[in-house]
């Protein structure tokens, strides 16, 4: 069929095309959602490595400050360049690829009983545009002027005017333009991908797979895709306008009265008029806040799914979990101004955003409560996947709680642009999300690769990482409370040049090195298990959802030519009166006694 969609011929048979045989069509330009999922995941993993290495470099710089006879570790603008790329790579190339593009692509079609995504060729296109975006971003390191240095947020005028950086200094030349171009490409890829996810979830569910029987991971990917669809377009526009300001002399973000040493100071004219730097912030954060939910929602879904599996209990409050995720998604669109309280926007607007921001605490609290409710009265198995999922719950609480300080406009007068903010978003967006991705890896690796990962190494990986991330980010709250500003590459101020500050920085850096080293265990485990891991059975975790009904790894067409028929919800664990402590979604209707579902 020319649309690329898979057709359904008869009642139980699904008509599929013959699988490709050559290497390039099978593993490179593949339209198979499973291959594409792995491609996204691999891109995310490599990006993780690059982004973390950058952070270790600038963290080393911070704990070895320049002094008497001591040269700084990083020269010139390198600190800001590495910081900018660290943020950009991690937010876009890791947190937006691996959870949604990686696991979502691989698992969603299977979990709803579909043979592939609705638009497999568009799916392939999404990945390769993402890859092009990645190459464009990495190219920034190698062009004249080097990588951009205006932060992952790239506020104009700093990011819009090359002369904002002294002549000869790095960080504001082609690198900044490539940064914008890379993000624009990423937006296109994400929009195309989002359409695919939404249509697939709505249209390609197997018979009996009602919306309320879908695993929470599917709900998470579905809702995330809707958020992405609505927010990425705005970022693309913001980026486009920035590019126009940079190269075509427009003034979307550049006002009249600007005086720069590199322009008027050398006799040139300021040619811009009538723009607003704050407009950029509105466009950026209108995307930027939903983006953090794009980063965390998939992990929430994965973690819910895993906790139910290893607590041998239904998820507590399934419907509430769905509504909570939807509420988080919706509310996420009307709070962006809390990133801009001190920006100079109207104080009245700030009050509105501040009050609205508090409401996001409500669905978040419900979800936390429900994860605890799922564990309560369970039969807990502490596999690596479960440990990382439980770790996610702890990190979500820790990271979320600092948000309560930041969402209030007056306290934010103090906290804005300090390390308190850095601690907050790393815990809730960076680390919690990553724990979800890692949990998903331990959980689905056997299915995807046909081999089990080593559980002992997995547990060791968990303990090291869990301790490590708290050692990195808990102290950051304290230095933030002392007023340590963000994005500072040196210690000129007396209040920063104290023994406590230097000790804190050293502690954080060492914890970061330790935590990064722990990830070697993870990657090593994956690589080793790929060749020598124990062969995985169909359902090693005794899970209920559809991916556990097929061979590990799944056949090319997932369900072997037969469309599954679903009779149960996704979390029928320990059903009273049932034969085993789990009932698969495709088990016959009688497997769950009629009176098992109590009203609640």
């Amino acid at each position, binding site marked *: 069929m020319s649309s690329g969609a898979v057709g359904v011929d008869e009642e139980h048979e699904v008509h599929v095309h013959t699988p490709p045989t050559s290497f390039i069509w099978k593993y490179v330009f593949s339209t198979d959602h499973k291959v594409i999922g792995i491609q996204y995941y691999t891109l995310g993993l490599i990006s993780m490595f690059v982004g973390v290495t950058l952070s270790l470099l600038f963290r080393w710089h911070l704990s070895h400050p320049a002094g008497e006879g001591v040269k700084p570790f990083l020269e010139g603008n390198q600190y*800001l360049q590495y910081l900018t790329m660290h943020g950009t790579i991690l937010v876009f190339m890791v947190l937006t690829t691996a959870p949604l593009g990686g696991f979502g692509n691989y698992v969603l079609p299977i979990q709803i009983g579909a043979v592939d995504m609705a638009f497999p060729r568009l799916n392939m296109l999404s990945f390769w545009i993402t890859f092009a975006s990645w190459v464009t971003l990495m190219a920034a390191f190698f062009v004249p002027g080097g990588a951009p*240095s205006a932060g992952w947020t790239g506020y104009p*005028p*700093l990011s819009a*005017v090359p002369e904002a950086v*002294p002549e000869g*200094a790095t960080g504001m030349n082609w690198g900044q333009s490539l940064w914008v171009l890379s993000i624009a490409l990423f937006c296109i890829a994400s929009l195309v991908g989002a359409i695919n996810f939404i249509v697939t979830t709505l249209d390609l569910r197997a018979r009996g797979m009602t919306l309320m029987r879908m695993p929470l991971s599917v709900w998470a990917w579905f809702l995330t895709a809707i958020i992405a669809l609505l927010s990425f377009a705005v970022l693309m526009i913001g980026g486009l306008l920035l590019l126009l300001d940079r190269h075509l002399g427009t003034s979307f973000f550049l006002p009249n*009265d*600007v*005086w720069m*040493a590199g322009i*008027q*100071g050398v*006799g040139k004219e300021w040619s811009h008029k009538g*723009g607003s*730097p704050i407009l950029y912030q509105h466009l950026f954060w209108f995307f930027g806040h939903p983006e953090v939910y794009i980063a965390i929602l998939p992990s929430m879904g994965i973690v819910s799914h895993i906790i139910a599996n290893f607590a041998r*209990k239904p998820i*507590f*409050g399934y*419907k509430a979990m769905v509504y909570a995720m939807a509420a988080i998604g919706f509310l996420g669109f009307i709070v962006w101004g809390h990133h801009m309280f*001190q920006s*100079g926007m109207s*104080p009245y607007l*700030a009050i509105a955003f501040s*009050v609205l*921001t508090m*409401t996001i605490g*409500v669905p978040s*609290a419900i979800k936390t409560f429900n994860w*605890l409710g799922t564990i*309560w*009265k369970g*039969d*807990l198995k*502490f596999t690596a996947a479960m*440990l990382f999922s*439980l770790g996610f719950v702890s990190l979500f609480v*820790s990271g979320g709680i600092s948000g*309560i300080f930041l*969402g*209030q*406009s*007056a*306290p934010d*007068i*103090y906290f*804005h*642009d300090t390390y308190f903010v850095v601690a907050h978003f790393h815990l809730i967006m960076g680390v919690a999300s990553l724990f979800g991705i890692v949990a998903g890896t331990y959980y689905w690796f056997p299915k995807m690769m046909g081999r089990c990962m080593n559980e002992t190494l997995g547990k060791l990986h968990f*303990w090291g990482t869990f301790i490590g991330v*708290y050692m990195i980010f*808990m102290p950051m*709250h304290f230095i933030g409370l002392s*007023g340590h500003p963000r*994005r500072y590459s040196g210690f*000129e101020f007396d*209040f920063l040049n104290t023994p406590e500050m230097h000790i804190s920085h050293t502690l954080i850096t060492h914890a970061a090195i330790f935590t990064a080293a722990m990830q070697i265990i993870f990657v090593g485990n994956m690589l080793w298990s790929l060749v020598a891991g124990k062969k995985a059975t169909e359902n090693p975790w005794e899970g209920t959802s559809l991916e556990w009904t097929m061979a590990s790894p799944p056949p090319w067409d997932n369900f072997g030519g037969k469309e599954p028929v679903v009779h149960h919800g996704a979390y029928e664990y*320990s059903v009273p009166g049932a034969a085993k*402590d789990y009932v698969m979604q495709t088990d016959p209707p009688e497997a769950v006694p009629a009176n098992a579902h*109590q009203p*609640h």
Partner: protein
Amino acid sequence: MSAFFLAFLLLALVLGGIIPMAMRDSILPQPLASEHGKYIDDQIRLTFWIVGIIFSLAQLALAYLVIKYRSRGQKATYVEGHTKFEVSMAALAGILFVSLNLMGQHIWAGYHLKKPDENTIKIECTGMQFEWHFRYPGKDGVFGNLDNRLIGVESGDLAKALEKEEKDKAAGKLYKTDRAKNLVGVEWKSGTPGADDIHTSDLIIPVDREIELQVRGQDVIHSVFVRELRVKQDAVPGLRVNVHFKAINVPQKLPEKLSPPQHIDAQDVVNYFELACAELCGSNHYAMKSHVWVLKQDAYDRWLKAMNDDVVKAAEDRDK
């Protein structure tokens, strides 16, 4: 065993996170030196107690549950949820968070929306790469006009400056401006409101007086940040944003070696704070340093008079 180790870590997290905070005299830097700052600190302290309790309960609940329900051959209980409980928890959380927020909004309103009266001292604060500049309106109480074409122009005379620019352009001269000669581009030729404006690179204020700081940016976005005053405001090109605060008289152990600006004696200094930039503005963002000098009222008046005299003399010298 995993359950016990995880529970132990969570306990350590709660103790390690909460106890150091609870033990501090104050969560935020001391001395707290502004009136609105008291309210900010109170709000932060209240938030700390509320979220501290929630944080501790959640982490400890997790710790307790993982131990109690670790697999020991028991069968899990088939519980699908409890809607009433969910709804009441949600309502409770909502009321708590929104109330907490509403309680603090008066601070924000005062900070931004307070109307200045005749006792308010208005000071303009300009952020530029990579220094701060402050301007006082002088005896006439009116700020002189700003024009970017006057930046670096020592005469402060716009007509003269434009004339010279035309001449230079015609002669094909491309020149470098010494910005320092007129940092923010004030029209200060005799007879203009700017002639008596006072310029400093440090912020000098009297204690116990309302200050309206009018914050602006000259090239890129900066942000003026004084920790002890609990003041922060982005300095945005194209905008002029007002913030209001009052320095209160608080004891402070001043640094041994104090180098106050001209016309200020070290013994007149009540408080001294560092002033930092809090918005990424380029390579020297970390080094954009200035200071705040809080003086006794009479010392401030003396300083102001001395600065006025200097400004008048400078204007006379220019006219010659």
